[in-house]
């Protein structure tokens, strides 16, 4: 590793073929102050797994226009415990440069939701210890890549530059006990650069199927009462996962001038009106100022996940006693309604946070960061996962120290 630090970003030519081998790594340690929640695998004991990773990238260019890129990443934290530090192919694509401003890529690509999506695991490339979780949480372990194709066009207009990217493909992953299958993913990104400013807008349309065993148990429970009243069948049917379209919008703004920088992003994801579906939105605003090699920064942000009212309202509006069923059956209906509301309410979440951190650029290619992040849970526990649904703190503080490097 030390040898790599002395020869950063190595590039070697082999005959007419050019190839590059490079990599990135993070060694982090973190803990939180609350015993009742976990934060990316971190709890009250210091852990080095949550923010530790190693990535290796290989690029080969047989001609000026063709390029093959592969990137493999091994992460210390994964929501599936048995896959810690297991190498995973994040990039594997073939690229063709049609003209100076037109390029196509085909293969496994990064999901391009946000400003730092495509380098989300390269800690050295951004100021914070980790990208603000109010926006980047889903990308940090699960939905990091898709398989498909993209087309990028780059141009200028006066003193400004613009870039448009169209992409399409498919993606799947899981988060805790929810399987996410996106069989059609379409989108485009627009980037505009002018002097110190960068503005980015992203639009995705995903045909999504969400499968969750808890939701399936509810579907089955409601469906079995369909004979009593069609309302139960309709509830079960509305929860049944099917391929439904989901919309995603994200706006990013970056201003960097001299030693000052401001970065902000906002996203909203609108789920379909059926299936186990939610609406998500989040934002953050970051301010930093560089003093030589030291950059203190502050971030504020918020995140919200809300079950569609079209799904929960029919359950809430049920009147178990109106069906004239025997008492034992009515009792079951009351419990089922309560269970349904409990399950859905556990998904609703709202959090706000504030972060203070410090980045020290030890050497070009090496940065040391330390960060304190305060979470205020307005509803449930936001991006932190409770160990027990019935024991939820109202706030938490996460501490992180991380060394990022590129080579």
């Amino acid at each position: 590793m030390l040898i790599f630090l002395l020869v950063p970003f190595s590039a070697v030519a082999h005959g007419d073929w050019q190839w590059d081998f490079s990599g990135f790594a993070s060694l982090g340690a973190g803990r939180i102050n609350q015993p009742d929640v976990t934060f990316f695998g971190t709890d009250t004991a210091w852990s080095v797994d949550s923010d530790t990773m190693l990535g290796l990238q290989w690029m080969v260019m047989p001609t000026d226009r063709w390029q093959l890129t592969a990137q493999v990443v091994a992460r210390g934290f994964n929501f599936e415990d048995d896959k810690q530090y297991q190498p995973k192919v994040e990039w594997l694509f073939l690229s063709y440069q049609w003209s100076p401003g037109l390029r196509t890529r085909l293969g496994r690509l990064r999901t391009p939701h946000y400003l730092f999506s495509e380098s989300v695991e390269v800690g050295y490339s951004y100021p914070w210890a980790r990208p603000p979780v109010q926006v980047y949480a889903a990308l940090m372990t699960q939905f990091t890549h898709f398989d498909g194709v993209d087309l990028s066009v780059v141009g200028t207009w006066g003193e400004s530059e613009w870039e448009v990217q169209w992409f399409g493909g498919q993606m799947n992953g899981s988060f805790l006990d929810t399987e996410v299958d996106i069989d059609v993913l379409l989108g485009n990104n627009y980037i505009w650069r002018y002097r110190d400013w960068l503005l980015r807008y992203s639009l995705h349309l995903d045909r999504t199927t969400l499968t969750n065993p808890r939701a399936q148990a509810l579907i089955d429970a409601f469906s079995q009462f369909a004979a009593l009243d069609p309302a139960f069948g309709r509830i079960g049917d509305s929860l049944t996962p099917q391929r439904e379209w989901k919309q995603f919008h994200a706006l990013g703004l970056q201003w960097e001038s001299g030693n000052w920088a401001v970065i902000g992003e906002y996203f909203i994801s609108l789920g379909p009106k059926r299936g186990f579906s939610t609406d998500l939105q989040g934002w953050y605003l970051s301010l930093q100022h560089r003093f030589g090699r030291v950059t203190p920064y502050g971030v504020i942000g918020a995140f919200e996940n809300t079950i569609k009212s079209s799904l929960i309202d029919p359950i809430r509006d049920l009147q178990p006693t109106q069906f004239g069923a025997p008492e034992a059956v009515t009792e079951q209906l009351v419990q089922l309604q309560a269970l349904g509301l409990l399950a859905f309410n556990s998904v609703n979440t709202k959090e706000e946070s504030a972060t203070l951190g410090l980045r020290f650029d030890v050497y070009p290619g090496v940065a040391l960061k330390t960060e304190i992040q305060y979470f205020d849970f307005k509803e449930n526990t936001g991006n932190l996962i409770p160990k027990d649904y019935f024991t939820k703190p109202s706030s938490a503080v996460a501490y992180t120290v991380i060394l990022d490097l590129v080579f």
Partner: protein
Amino acid sequence: MANRMKVESCPQQLKHLLGRWFLCSWLLLLGGLCWGQESRALVVVVHPENPLNELALLQVRQIFLGRLRLFPNTGHGLEVTDQPHDTAIFRLFYRQTVGMDVDRLSRYRARYIFSGQGRLPARMSDSEAVKLHISNTREAIGYLYADEVDERVKVVFDVPHEEAVSP
């Protein structure tokens, strides 16, 4: 006593004068070197037979920040070269073209390299190595001090002296 004092103070005064003269000379020399380095004009150069004759500042920025992967207008292959990161010419070039210092540039390059956007410039050991490489590689582009240009390279852009606004 007074005469001895006069005789002793004279060499001492001379020593002081000489000392000040040397100090001032060195300061002027160093200052001149520094000032000279900072004020030396920079140029962007390509192979003499490269069909490209001129670049705009925005195109220079795009090329050296990896946002253009082929030569503009001609569509020929593009290989960007860099000088060592700890040299004055490297710092000056990126300050005057893209408005970035070493740390910020390093962070920017990490972002685009590991997002699969392109590759880093090939690092040369010094200006002579830049000229040698460009003279042997038609796709190459690099930067030099204007007074280092010779027949092995062709100038396509004169870097403005004022500090650039970051892109």
